[in-house]
């Protein structure tokens, strides 16, 4: 097998490459616009199995040429490029996995189902923690209780790291801002609608994690679960993000000040995108020089009758939120040869939960059915 990991030197991409390297004997190409970063990360493995390649992802012919001959393209770049990358995979006839398309992009991606089926390839959309593990937990729950009305998805993080910085950014600033500002999709009484950003505040009791307030957020699960589980009687589906109150306060202030606008601005005679510059300032708060000690809990509740949860602990190098996003992506990329159906799918329709959970457990991610570990 040969994998191309696009953005394989980014926050999540690095952890995906590490998992593929540790758990397979296959070849891995780390590719992206920053060849220097790709090369320096590849060198760390001291292995001929890992190589670095320059590619301008926006350049269709260049990207198609790069992925030709690979078995699976693992897309770890910003979701804005998902469709474009899938089209290159169609031309190059490769399988494809990604980390999600924040609802709207996912819906567009699903429309490429027929084209992937025609070339006898698989595209699995949303293979991280959420979407990803949450979707497969939903599939498991559906197999267990067959009939249910509602699915409530959320997650929480418990962090005991001693940071020497005033703020900690858990993942891509732009994705985070999308979660706060894009109108969230909500499925209620069998109908999909868009709520206002920040609406749907609900307090969750996460047991040892304590109580946390969550709010609706735009997520890919809402693009697929309602149709995937319509036959099971699903009428309500909601996704909420939870963050500590102080974290919320900082992000909301940046939004209110206009520092996350997508408009262009002239600064000292130079044009820049406001959010790009703010993301640059905020990027410095992605922890890099500390040993992170945190745990992340993903939670999928069915009518409050069955609660599926997945618990991930940081491993000293990567925070829990990076591990539980990267690991499932690597697992699903490796499962692709065993998937019989061809086309573009969300994970809940084609991934075998038992096999998937077993792989998660091998990597230290525990899945619970109510409070019983699977």
């Amino acid at each position, binding site marked *: 097998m040969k994998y191309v990991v696009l953005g394989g030197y980014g926050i999540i991409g690095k952890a995906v490459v590490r998992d593929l390297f540790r758990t397979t004997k296959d070849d891995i190409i780390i590719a992206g616009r920053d060849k220097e970063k790709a090369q320096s990360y590849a060198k760390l493995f001291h292995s001929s199995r890992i190589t670095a390649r320059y590619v301008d992802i926006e350049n269709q012919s260049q990207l198609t040429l790069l992925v030709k001959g690979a078995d699976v393209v693992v897309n770890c770049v910003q979701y804005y490029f998902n469709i474009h990358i899938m089209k290159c995979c169609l031309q190059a006839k490769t399988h494809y996995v990604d980390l999600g398309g924040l609802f709207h992009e996912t819906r567009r991606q699903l429309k490429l189902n027929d084209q992937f089926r025609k070339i006898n390839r698989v595209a699995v959309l949303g293979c991280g923690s959420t979407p990803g593990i949450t979707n497969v937990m939903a599939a498991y729950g559906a197999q267990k209780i067959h009939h249910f009305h509602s699915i409530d998805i959320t997650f929480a993080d418990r962090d005991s790291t001693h940071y020497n910085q*005033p*703020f900690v950014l858990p993942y891509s600033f732009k994705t985070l801002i999308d979660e706060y500002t894009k109108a969230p999709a909500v499925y209620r009484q069998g109908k999909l609608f868009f709520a206002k950003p920040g609406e749907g505040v609900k307090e969750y009791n996460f047991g040892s994690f304590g109580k946390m307030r969550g709010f609706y957020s735009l997520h890919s699960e809402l693009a697929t679960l309602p149709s995937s589980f319509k036959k099971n009687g699903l009428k309500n589906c909601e996704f909420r993000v939870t963050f500590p109150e102080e974290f919320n306060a*900082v992000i909301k*202030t940046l939004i*209110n*000040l*206009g*520092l996350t*606008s997508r408009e262009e*601005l*002239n*600064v*000292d005679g*130079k*044009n*820049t*995108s*406001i959010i*790009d*510059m703010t993301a*640059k*300032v*905020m990027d*410095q*708060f992605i922890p890099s020089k500390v040993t992170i000690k945190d745990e992340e809990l993903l939670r999928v509740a069915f009518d409050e009758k069955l609660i599926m949860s997945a618990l991930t602990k940081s491993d000293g190098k990567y925070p829990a939120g990076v591990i539980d996003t990267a690991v499932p992506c690597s697992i699903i990329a490796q499962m692709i040869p065993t998937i019989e159906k061809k086309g573009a799918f969300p994970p809940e329709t084609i991934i075998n939960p038992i096999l998937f959970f077993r792989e998660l457990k091998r990597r230290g991610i525990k899945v619970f059915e109510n409070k019983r570990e699977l």
Partner: protein
Amino acid sequence: MVCDFIVFGGTGQQGRICARDLLECGHRIVLAGRDSSAVQDMLKNKRASFMRVDLKKQEEILAAILRSGAKVVVNCSELIYNVPIMKACLVAGRSCTDLGGLNDITIQQFKLDQDFRKRGIINITGCGSTPGITNVMAAHAINEFDSVDTIDLGFAWDSNIKDFVVPYSIKSIFNEFNTAPIILRNGKLVKADRMNCMATYMFKEIGKQTVHCIVHSEAFTFAKYFKYKGLKNLHYMAGFPEHSLKVINMLMELGFSSEEALEVDGISIKPASFTTQVLKRLRFPPGYTEVENLWVRIWGKKNKKPLFRQMDCIVRTLKGWEKSGSNVNTGRTISIISQMLHTRLITQTGVYGPEAVVPCPVFFQELDNRGIHIYDNGRRINEKKHLLVNHPSILVDNHLPFS
């Protein structure tokens, strides 16, 4: 058109306030700046015109002053342009005013004193709310004392709606917060720690607020002008309401006030400049009003007995000036002092702080005409009736020995 005043930084917030005040007083003005889009409404007035000037280019400053024919140069730009504009005034032979240079630039400005005297012109530095009104209030109150031990002064403000708005130039705020405050301790100017140099006072119209020392030009000019009263200690302190201070501190902690350029898509940009531009887009929420207290507290002696005196200047959001909040007391004050140069009410030559040359009673009266009220130990003093009854020497100078 030959004009009375050229206003540098005339398209910025304070420049626009000053320009409007000058126009309302019937003067002809030139607004000098880089982009006229913010002053299109003002340019409908036949007595106003616009001149494109890049203040980074010394020759453009001089050419603008000469071309405008202005008698007085009003500098409402960022403080880094104070010295270049003064140097252009020396060549052109025009008097000028500005909004202050914190510590370092104020010191550089005073080094040009002899040049200004020789040229027969004046620069008054720090002609806004503070420095500006605070300096003149101190000059007014200090006459009462035989000797002065300590002066605390500064500003405090609050708003009815607790949303963040830019209180004044965010670049100045970043500068003031990022620089170690300079205080006068036992007669010597020394650096202090902003977080440990603070006080909590009750402020008229504001209530209780904790104020922190920041760097400001008053430390330098008060030490110079009030030395003859034996002034030993001085603290300049800034008070922000909690909701505003929280946001400023947050922006600074996250690096949005940094002067170190970052590269974004191959373009190098300073976070501080970026933040300034983004925050310029913020508008006051509907119904938003402010109140600001500029305050001076003086401890000293008279007839060998302890004496305390407190001056307060109160300004609220004024009718017709709602978009400017309490900032009117900066832009309109530099307009008043600049007009005093134009009408030759001030005739000295050299470089001065306003406490040395601005006649208190006339100045206070002009502030009152603009809805800005002055209180001496809690009693309002700039109502016309008070001035006439209690201050017969209305046009007499400040009685300071150095002007």
